[in-house]
């Protein structure tokens, strides 16, 4: 192993003969990468399934392959993860990022979990000029934060582009005479649900689509049947719930029981979870989903197998997206060939990255043309909108009655 590294180093030395010899310094023993996410408290479940499980899987994959190639030293360098528990608290998260940067002096720091935590730690990342790709963060304001935080990148689809295709879809089906175009919207009273619903409302207004029901419900509601009954009386043919996992499960089951089955049925976070598939079986077919990944992207099949081998469970698309951000980071590091955070930042900002989820390119540090809408088709989550992207599948319409 040691010898091979040396040989490889020698080989690239000849290739890079024009470099001054002083650059041929000893390669670092490892690339130290830290992160602070919620490992306990209310955010812990989400952070585990979407975020840190993927960091660990990625680190294992990288180290199984010998490490990340650093051109400057002509050697593959393994990564070493340092993890902290932010206990689902903002104040802790801010402090732990500082701890990683100032005390542990890690080479890179990865993003935490959740919109609030990502936004609250962004100033710290940017103060110390640590490039970071935020994934589990979606808020309208993010689009304007580029110049303020040049080291922060935002990879997830944001509320406006996530909902615009939905309104267009309803409009198109209405003009084709397939539906009457009566839209019912309900949303959870939390930041993402509220911003998604507001963006959807605006998009519908722009498209001239009629909204017959538009109401929120509190986070932690334990019954949504009064709302479903009220909607059923209004006879909508497109239903959109901007929901969180527990309410996604609940509204779906209660729709089954009450027989609420409009031809367009969309639910939010939680819809693509393996637990959702296990719970609802064949009834999931045709349900539309918040966010998506290109299921035909190169490497995704192998990734799913590695994930299953490591965790003994299936993945959800959010995890695939998180893993993709790690691939972007890795490619940027390899392109730069050393741990130079300014150069890595520029490489992310300027590059186009093929990953297991999507092809990423950032403009104003915001991922452009991100996947917005997916759909359960058979036993698979496929990407539907934006329809002009590689890997997009045609919409399945109507959703089969349940």
């Amino acid at each position, binding site marked *: 192993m040691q010898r091979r590294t040396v040989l490889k180093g020698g080989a690239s030395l000849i290739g890079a003969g024009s470099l001054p010899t002083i650059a041929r310094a000893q390669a670092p023993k490892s690339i130290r990468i830290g992160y602070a996410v919620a*490992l*306990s*408290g209310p955010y812990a479940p989400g952070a585990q399934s979407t975020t840190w499980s993927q960091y660990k899987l990625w680190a294992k994959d990288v180290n199984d392959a010998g490490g990340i190639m650093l051109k400057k030293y002509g050697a593959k360098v393994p990564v070493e993860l340092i*993890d*902290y*528990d*932010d*206990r*689902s*608290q*903002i*104040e*802790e998260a*801010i*402090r*732990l990022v*500082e*701890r990683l*940067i*100032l*005390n542990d002096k890690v080479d890179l720091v990865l993003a935490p979990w959740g*919109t*609030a935590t990502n*936004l*609250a730690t*962004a*100033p710290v990342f940017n103060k110390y000029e640590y490039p970071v790709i935020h994934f589990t963060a979606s*808020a*309208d*304001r993010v689009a304007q934060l580029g110049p*303020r935080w040049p080291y922060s990148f935002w990879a997830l689809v944001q509320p406006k582009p996530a909902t615009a295709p939905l309104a267009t879809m309803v409009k198109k089906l209405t003009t084709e005479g397939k539906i009457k175009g009566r839209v019912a919207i309900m949303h959870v*009273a*939390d*930041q993402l649900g*509220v*911003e998604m619903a*507001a963006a959807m409302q605006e998009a519908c207004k722009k498209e001239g689509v009629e909204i017959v029901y538009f109401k*929120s419900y*509190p*986070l932690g509601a334990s019954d949504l049947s009064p709302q479903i009954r009220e909607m059923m009386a209004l006879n909508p043919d497109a239903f959109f719930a901007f929901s969180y996992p527990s309410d996604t499960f609940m509204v779906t089951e209660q729709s089954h029981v009450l027989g609420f089955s409009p031809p367009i049925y969309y639910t939010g976070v939680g819809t693509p979870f393996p637990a959702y598939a296990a719970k609802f079986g064949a009834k999931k077919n045709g349900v539309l989903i918040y966010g998506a990944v290109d299921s035909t992207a190169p490497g995704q099949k192998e990734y799913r197998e590695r994930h299953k081998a490591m965790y003994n469970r299936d993945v959800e698309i959010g995890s695939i997206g998180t893993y993709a951000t790690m691939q972007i980071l890795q490619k940027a590091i390899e392109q730069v060939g050393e741990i130079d955070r300014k150069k890595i930042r520029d490489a992310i900002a300027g590059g186009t990255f093929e990953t297991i989820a999507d092809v990423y390119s950032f403009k104003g540090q915001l991922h452009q043309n991100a996947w917005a809408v997916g759909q359960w088709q058979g036993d698979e989550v496929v990407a539907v909108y934006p329809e002009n992207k590689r890997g997009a599948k045609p919409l399945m319409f109507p959703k089969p009655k349940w």
Partner: protein
Amino acid sequence: MAEKPASRWWIAPAAAGVAFLAGLPLLLSAYTVSLLISVLAYASLATSWAFFSGTTRYISLATAAFVGIGTYTVALLSDHLPLAVVLAIAHMIGFVIALGVGLSTLRLSGIYFVIFTFGLTELIKQLVIWFEINQTKTLARYIFVNASGTLIYELLLATATIVIAGVWWLSRSRVGYALRVIGEDEMVARHSGIDTTRVKVLVFAATSAVMSMVGAVLSLRYTYVDPNIAFNSLVSFQVLIMALLGGIGRPWGPALGAVPLVLLSELLSGTFPHHFGIALGICFVVIVFFLPGGVMGLVDRWSAWLPRSALRRRKES
């Protein structure tokens, strides 16, 4: 004993200590400063909480409500007004709302008061959510104040100093005496001519205002705030736990609970990141069983061994 004027020998060293603490950010890394920020914030919260709840036995879970009110005041006003004014307003709003709450909850006692204050926090949170959804169509509020860790540290140090000194001074005054009598037996307090209502409500409002102040200062570097973050019931429980751990009988007690708990949490979350909850839980059980009376109990047992304090006791008696 409470009214007896004590010697003031410790004032000079205490002042020197505070001055030293104020200078610390010059020597320490930003990380250590932010660790101290947590220590100071929780020490202030626990001290002010215990001054009301610990002495009167009215256990309040509304800490999160008042912290949240401070946070939200900053979120609403920081773009429009200078920082000092915003902080003053946060302090005032906390005071006024606490006055209202105090007046309306007088009839409650025991566990009914505890759960009432918890429900109140949730109600405020739900109303803020509802208001934001219907008025602003988003729950997100952004705070872009250019406040460094050092500034926040100094503000909290000032708050903590004032709170601890204030509580120390008040607990030796008539107010503290009145509170203790109320805690012992409210009926007796009323009969001995104490205006229990006035004392309770005013102290509740004053300590709640401190909580709003702490919430306001902490939020200066959150960047992003929504009602679930601002009105986080976990904070109420944490403060309660710290105060219980420190010992609520004396002004220093709660702060002595906050310091080790913040440090212990930091240590555990770094050492056992994936088993933090389990480790912390076990620590709690161990502490209760092997450290009865909390940190103050420990201090008492130690000071009994120290010759100097024995000497002082002899002098006092």
